[in-house]
């Protein structure tokens, strides 16, 4: 076991903390270097900035602010996990081990109560989705573009969930999966296909719309406060008239709701919907029936040999 008090341990600790903080600093620096602040309101609400484009055969692949920021979030969470699990021992002698244990226990409990014991192994996946979503939404507090207010990022997660749902549906047999589209009668087939596609679409739109509406309202209110303060103080000479004194404080109160509460809430809801969709669409009985059949076949084969 490593000595907790040794200099080497502390150096590695500092490295991990730096690894968790540096991506955010780099993203902020990139924003300051490359961004030209817009004059009108609509410039501030415009989507993610395109940093550069990679030439591709069909169409140029744009690397946007949202992609860069989400990669920064992933790197930061990676180093945070390393930090929290550094120096684990059977008898916890570090505070961070208690935090790590609490996170693991909570997600495992959540997954087991919502998905059942068959999906016990999904705790890391759910925790990862929750962590990335929450950190991405909270990035708006740093003044940079939150990756979750770009639909492409959230749609990626939703498509991942859709693939998992389809995979677990197919576990009940391909024939049963296709037959499910024809229920209750065959006329309903187009509607059933539409309903299948609607799940990832609605998940993506829900997360993206909630975060985006918060940022749009924040920008509108900031602009309105600037206008009001220029009316109140506009008659003063020189730079005194330009001070947007009403912008101090009030946007921060709104940010508590729109960025912190709404961001964490959406992360929880996205993870919850992922769990419910995956486990709710899984045909447990058919899967068990098939499993029994397969085992019987195998046993027969072995007997014949």
């Amino acid at each position, binding site marked *: 076991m490593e000595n907790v008090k040794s200099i080497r341990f502390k150096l590695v600790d500092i490295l991990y903390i730096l690894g968790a903080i540096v991506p955010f600093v780099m993203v902020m620096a990139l924003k300051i270097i490359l961004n030209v602040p817009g004059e009108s309101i*609509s410039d501030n*609400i*415009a989507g993610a900035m395109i940093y550069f484009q990679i030439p591709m055969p069909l169409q140029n692949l744009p690397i946007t602010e949202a992609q860069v920021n989400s990669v920064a979030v992933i790197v930061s969470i990676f180093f945070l996990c390393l930090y929290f699990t550094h120096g684990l021992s059977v008898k916890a002698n570090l505070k961070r081990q208690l935090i790590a244990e609490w996170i693991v226990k909570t997600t495992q409990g959540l997954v087991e109560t919502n998905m059942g014991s068959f999906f016990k192994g999904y705790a890391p996946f759910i925790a990862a989705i929750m962590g990335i979503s929450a950190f991405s939404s909270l990035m708006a507090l740093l003044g940079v573009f939150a990756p979750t207010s770009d639909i492409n990022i959230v749609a990626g997660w939703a498509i991942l969930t859709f693939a998992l749902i389809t995979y677990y549906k197919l576990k009940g047999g391909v024939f049963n999966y296709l037959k499910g589209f024809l229920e209750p009668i065959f006329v309903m087939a187009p509607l059933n296909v539409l309903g299948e596609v609607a799940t990832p679409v*609605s998940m993506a*739109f*829900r997360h*993206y*719309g*909630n975060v*985006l*509406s918060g940022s*749009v309202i924040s920008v509108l209110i900031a602009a309105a406060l600037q206008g009001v303060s220029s009316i109140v103080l506009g008659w003063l000479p020189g730079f005194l008239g330009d001070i947007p004194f009403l912008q101090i404080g009030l946007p921060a109160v709104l940010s508590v709701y729109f960025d912190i509460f709404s961001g964490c*809430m*959406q992360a*929880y*809801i996205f993870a*919850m*919907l992922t769990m419910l969709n995956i486990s709710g669409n899984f045909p447990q009985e058919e899967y068990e029936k098939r499993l029994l059949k397969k085992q019987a076949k195998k046993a027969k084969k072995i007997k014949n040999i």
Partner: protein
Amino acid sequence: MALAIGIILGCCALGAGICMGIGAVGPGIGEGNAVSKACEAIGRQPEAKGDVTSTMIMGCAIAETTGIYSLVVAILLIFVAPSTFIGILEKTVKTLSESGIKL
């Protein structure tokens, strides 16, 4: 041409306002219902407060979906649609004048 562009811009703004205004009614009523029922449930069974609250928040999030759709449509109407529609208009005018039809 200027008149046509003005009509397009005005209709986009009007459409966004109507979309958001009508689209917000449904989720508002639905969420109000959900919260009132949750309050009743907590009043009847105060010990189940945690479960009721988390279920209510999930339900609210799902009821909100239609409102979010209308929000997305409104944002598209304000920021994306005008330039697209004006582009279509200019293209049509160009092809019409090339084929000899006078407007």
